[in-house]
């Protein structure tokens, strides 16, 4: 749970950083996208250590394994918690838990569902909502992103998804370090909590800047 979660947070930081290339321009963003897939003229990332185009598939397999193991661990924890709770209290009152901690499970399901949509939209191009990849967007990743996020409701859906993701990370980041043994004192908890907030905010702002810029026309075709 902790190891796979931290791996996915690291990926999100990288993904967010890559998205910001949209601000530089079409050529820079498309080159970056092709470079990751090994389609650029220089052979792409990690070429010639790996043959061109291999990196992206190794990366995808590792990410998929992380997601599957993360969900497997979560399901196991959920099942154990259910098994240990034969009845609920008549009076319920929470003293310590945060909204993020309470919504880790259902929130996780919601964000996983939207992840599938996200992949179908931007990776597989099967669920594009404002055109087709080959004709409308002329096979340009930049044009695709601009076209999709120029719809206000798409930005809204994305924002809701990012709220779910970042809330998950708000509890997940601190919890992962606690599970790995880093919560060594009350002071360490304050620091880990602050880091979790910082990462969640950085990710939210970093991911939302680009779609909002597209919506307001600051990034355009």
């Amino acid at each position, binding site marked *: 749970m902790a190891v796979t979660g931290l791996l996915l947070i690291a990926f999100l930081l990288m993904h967010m950083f890559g998205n910001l290339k949209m601000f530089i321009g079409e050529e820079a963003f498309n080159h970056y996208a092709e470079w990751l897939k090994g389609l650029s003229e220089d052979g792409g990332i990690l070429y010639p250590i790996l043959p061109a185009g291999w990196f992206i598939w190794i990366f995808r397999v590792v990410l998929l394994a992380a997601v599957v193991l993360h969900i497997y661990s979560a399901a*196991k*924890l959920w099942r*154990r*918690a259910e*098994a*240990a*709770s*034969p*009845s*609920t*209290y*008549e*009076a*319920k*009152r*929470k*003293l*310590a*838990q945060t909204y993020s*901690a*309470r919504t*880790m499970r259902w929130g996780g399901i919601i964000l996983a569902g939207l992840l599938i949509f996200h992949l179908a939209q931007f990776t597989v191009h099967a669920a594009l909502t404002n055109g087709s990849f080959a004709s409308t967007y002329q096979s340009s990743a930049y044009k695709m992103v601009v076209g999709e996020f120029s719809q206000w409701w798409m930005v809204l859906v994305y924002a809701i998804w990012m709220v779910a993701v970042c809330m998950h990370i708000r*509890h997940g980041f*601190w*919890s992962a370090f*606690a*599970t*790995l*043994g*880093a*919560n*060594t*004192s*009350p002071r*360490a*908890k304050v620091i880990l909590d602050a880091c979790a907030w910082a990462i969640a905010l950085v990710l939210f702002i970093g991911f939302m800047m680009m779609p909002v810029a597209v919506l307001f026309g600051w990034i355009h075709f």
Partner: protein
Amino acid sequence: MNVTLRVWRQANAASEGRMVTYQVQDVSPDMSFLEMLDLLNEDLTVSGEEPVAFDHDCREGICGMCGVVINGTAHGRGNSPVPTTTCQLHMRSFEDGATIDVEPWRAGPFPVIKDLVVDRSAFDRIIQAGGYISVNTGSAPEANAAPVGKLKADRAFDAATCIGCGACVAACPNHSAMLFTSAKITHLAMLPQGQPERKLRIKNMIAQHDEEGFGGCTNIGECVAVCPKEIPFDTISQLNRDLISSLFSRDGK
């Protein structure tokens, strides 16, 4: 003061339970919560009803025997200004005329025996799995023969104050006994006497914890909020650190 109690009544482990409402009159604000229950039981006995069964022993907050969920929080922590056991919670923490919900610890590994009494022998079995040191007993050793650093001694002592009341399990949304187990682990891991069995102890105690059917810890923190002995949250990370390092050592090393 007068209070209205809604108490969980359950005749035995096999029967269905339900909340029953009682009026308790002339409660002194200086009574402990258990003394108020004693008052209720006197009334019930006089009127020929079955008294409410609840666990208690020292009534000084140090034995770990008492413990009920009051208004949704273990030991009534939500009503108390300070960490407390049920016996040390006083009626002055409640308003006159208040309605108070009283329920037993609810967790699969803590089956209700009767009314507010639950079977906490799962904790005993976790202790039996490794919460001890194997030494030949004899006369007490000379105090300075095995020096312990001040910080470690303090940490061991903080963890050792766990009275095993089970409030952590009752409050945990996962019904995990991680705070209890980690208190025992930390207590022995900080002291020289605990070192020979340190790695084996954690494997055995965690295995028993899971065997008993407690849930897994997801670092939510409800346990720490209700703990009458203020067992620190960081004992759970101590347990995790020891567990991770025990995975890289053979049993018994």
